[in-house]
């Protein structure tokens, strides 16, 4: 709160009051978060090829912690190297990485912010396989290639499923050992958990396919394994897609409905989850997640990094590159957005899930306006919101709200250029309207690389033979 904050004509009430729901702590079973704002999972390719995190990641996370949010849900953290979405993201598949995560946790905690590690596995949704993965099809619930990019995959055997369940449990244990505040299972947006959950993707005939009970078995097994590994006192939340909308490629099946997801959320609660994080869509990106624009010029400049990743990517590249073909993709993509708001796009679905569970519910989807967030929480659509793009644009967004502003002076435009640049360029805001010039934008992108200039001379036993 600051006395010098400019008066916001949209919020004549002035600075937020002490009982502003946004800044009211959120108490989970095993975790207390100082406010209702979570930094949603987002990252860049700034970690090492072996999966160890770098100072850049620490800088990245601290940028948001300093901005005043209550907790950070880490970027996608693979529990196995074969589960990476993009090479260059930190993993948690090795015990010797625990100290790195410990350092990161301490850094975030220094800003009075909690850190929740998002445990993940890409399954077939692997954008940039990297040297570890490019020579093999990824593991999935199915052997059908991914619908949008044509990523290849192979259905996991029961042994591989069990191995992966164990990997999640170990990942959670490493997070706890690193002193982090909890873990989130990324069971939304098309990754491995979704590939099991979705009726539009899962075509298995064993106990992990067919009925919703069977399709949810993998997720619930992971929850049980984690609870068995780390106990009941370590925070565990699950991010699910409330509705799959799996037919972005028009001939695909629609996938799970809201009622199915409500059932899944209830099962998660019963299995030991402490919170449900509600998203949308059975692939990522998806027209409804993150909602907003789609810059053909941007993706034309970056999608080439993915052309070798799938068997349909060249087709997509042509659709992106040539204006005459763009209307085809534009129709397929934007037909699902009609009539849907950008901010709070998943509010209704979150409300339905919150009504069905007793644990807190976090909603994601374009949140940026304080008044809308207050309304959503007060109306019991959710208990908190998670935000990525709006915080990239304004990492100190909570401070604007605390100062009584409904929106920051230069809000996120939902252009999605940050997302579309991710496969190729550093993470950050790429909205040209928000910068005086290109150099200013690049300067913003480089801030997280402001690491320690001191280089160390390795000791002889530290140098690989």
């Amino acid at each position, binding site marked *: 709160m600051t006395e010098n904050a400019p008066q916001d004509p949209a919020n004549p009430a002035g600075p937020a009051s002490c009982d502003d729901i946004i800044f009211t702590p959120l108490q989970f079973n095993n975790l207390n978060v100082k406010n209702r704002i979570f930094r949603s999972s987002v990252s860049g390719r700034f970690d090492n090829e072996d999966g160890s995190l770098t100072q850049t990641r620490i800088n990245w996370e601290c940028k948001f912690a300093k901005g005043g949010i209550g907790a950070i849900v880490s970027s996608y953290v693979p529990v196995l190297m074969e589960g990476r979405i993009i090479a260059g993201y930190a993993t948690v598949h090795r015990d010797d990485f625990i100290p790195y995560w410990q350092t990161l946790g301490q850094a975030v905690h220094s800003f009075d912010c909690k850190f929740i590690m998002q445990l993940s596995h890409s399954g077939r949704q692997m954008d940039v*396989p990297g040297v570890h993965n490019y020579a093999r099809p990824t593991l999935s619930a199915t052997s059908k290639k991914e619908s949008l990019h044509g990523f290849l995959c192979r259905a996991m055997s029961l042994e591989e499923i069990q191995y992966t369940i164990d990997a999640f449990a170990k990942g959670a244990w490493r997070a706890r050992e690193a002193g982090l505040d909890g873990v989130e299972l990324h069971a939304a947006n098309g990754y491995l958990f979704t590939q099991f959950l979705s009726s539009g993707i899962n075509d298995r005939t064993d106990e992990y396919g067919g009925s919703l009970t069977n399709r949810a078995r993998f997720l619930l097994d992971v929850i049980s394994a984690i609870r068995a590994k780390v106990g009941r006192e370590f925070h565990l939340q699950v991010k699910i897609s409330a509705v799959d909308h799996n037919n972005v490629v028009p001939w695909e099946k629609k996938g799970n409905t809201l009622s199915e997801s409500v059932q899944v959320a209830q099962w998660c609660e019963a299995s030991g989850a402490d919170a449900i994080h509600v998203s949308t869509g059975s692939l990522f990106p998806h027209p409804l997640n993150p909602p907003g624009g789609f810059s053909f010029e941007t993706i034309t400049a970056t999608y080439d990094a993915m052309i*070798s990743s799938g068997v349909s990517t060249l087709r997509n590249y042509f659709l992106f590159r040539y204006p005459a073909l763009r209307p085809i993709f534009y129709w397929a993509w934007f037909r699902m957005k009609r009539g849907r708001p950008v901010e709070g796009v998943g509010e209704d679905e979150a409300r339905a899930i919150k009504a069905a569970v007793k644990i807190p519910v976090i909603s994601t989807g374009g949140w940026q306006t304080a008044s809308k967030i207050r309304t959503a929480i007060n109306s019991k659509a959710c208990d908190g919101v998670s935000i990525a793009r709006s915080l990239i644009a304004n990492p100190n967004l909570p401070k604007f709200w605390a100062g009584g502003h409904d929106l920051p002076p230069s809000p996120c435009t939902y252009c999605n250029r940050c997302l579309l640049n991710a496969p190729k360029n550093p993470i950050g805001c790429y909205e040209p309207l928000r910068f005086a010039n290109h150099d200013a934008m690049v300067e913003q992108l480089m801030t997280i690389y402001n690491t320690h200039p001191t280089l160390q001379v390795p000791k002889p036993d530290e140098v690989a033979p």
Partner: protein
Amino acid sequence: MIRELPVTAVQEALHRRWRLLIPIYILLAIIAVLGVVCFILAVILLWQFAQNRTPHYADIVEEFKYGSIGTEPHSGIPYRIWRVLPALFPEDFGGRQDYSAFGFIYEKDADGRQRDLPIGISRRTYRNVDIVWFNCATCHTGTVSATTSSPDGQQRPARHIIPGMPSNNLYLERFIYFLLNAGADERLSPDSLIPEINKTGPTLGPPDEFIYRWYVIPMLRDGLLERRTRLFPLFAQQPPWGPGRVDTFNPYKLIQANMPLASLRQDELIGIADFPSIFNQGPREGMHLHWDGDNTSLAERNLSAAIGAGVTPDSVDFDAIDRVADWLKTLRPPASPHHPDAAAVARGRDIFMSQCRACHGLADSEGYTFTGNAIGQVEPNDTLGTDPHRLDSYTEKFREFQLANFFVGTPHQFKYFTKTNGYANLPLDGLWMRAPYLHNGSVPTLAALLQAPSQRPVAFIRGIDRPDTKNGGFEAPPCDPSAPPANSFCFDTRLPGNHNAGHLYGTDLPEAAKTDLLAYLLTF
């Protein structure tokens, strides 16, 4: 170049897919190549299919005689076939190698060689096939034979071709009979025609031979057989047309209007009449045109005549018709070759002025004058008394069909046709070359026309083009229809449609007055 192993799983999958799909890709490539070839061939074929061109002549007389009015596409005969028919059907051509056997007139070119096509036959390239058929000159160009003095003082016979004159030599019915019969003759099959066509050269190439074998010849035969089926039952109920005559409307009803023969009344089935002259069309605008005066519009009459010749609304060449029509407005007939006694002419003129002028204008040293109270008007046949068949052949039902179906929705839609009750009083310009007289050509000479019908020749030879200096008209010796002279047509006035009754004007004059009137008429 060393073939590298795939690096990524995606590459391996793509390689595998490529190997699996190679046959399909090859098939697609072949289809694509074939598609391109077919497209190119289709473009060429379409271009050829769209061909519709004809020679145009700077000289309007040449245009009249040889220029196209658009009859060829839907009515004509392929030129290459036209050329070989005399050789294939020698019995129909009387041993001649050209169509003069049917009265078509051939001219010589600048080198003194007979022209390829006769007068009245035009040529048009339609869908890349050269086709020939009728134009205005077919029915409106005749000949007059005369004896001329050569520079060496010798008397030599000469034959003058006169554009605009009735086609007094053309035996159109026989020509149509020949063609329709040829359609049913095995000699018009591809196996007979194509070798004969190649013999006349140039040899048909494989594509053209294919087109002729499978498209041109079958289409021609089908068309001829269809017309044969329609026209022969009509012809069977008509007397022979003879040279210089045509049934204007009945074939028109059956072919162009697609009316069944059974739908026609018995009394309309004989509409045979003489080809008319077409001089001085300008002054005729507004007069009742056609023998029965059924139309007062020159343009509409011209278009209707063109339809009779074979144009359709799709193929008609309005520009060509208009060009010829403009020229015909002022085309004057050659002066009469007769030199009757001047005093008799003067006396005859007085008689004419008192008894004939109102209906038929007058002629003097300035030429023909198109004035008269009743000139160009329809004289009821109850009064006139001539053979009614031609009048009856044009019916109200057919008039309604013409108005409702031809060029509907265009500026050319028919609207001036009327059903009359008689025959039109025609101007008499070029009278000397318009014999035989009356609409059906039933009276051979002017002198005979001044006789009572009972005294007019009962049967006479048609088709002689030597002027009769004494009686007016052309020589027309009497004949016996039951034993006609060889190579001549004996016209029998006793047959339906051929009656020579009526037009009694002047028949009751004293003989001297008739002689004077005839002298005056010889000057027309």
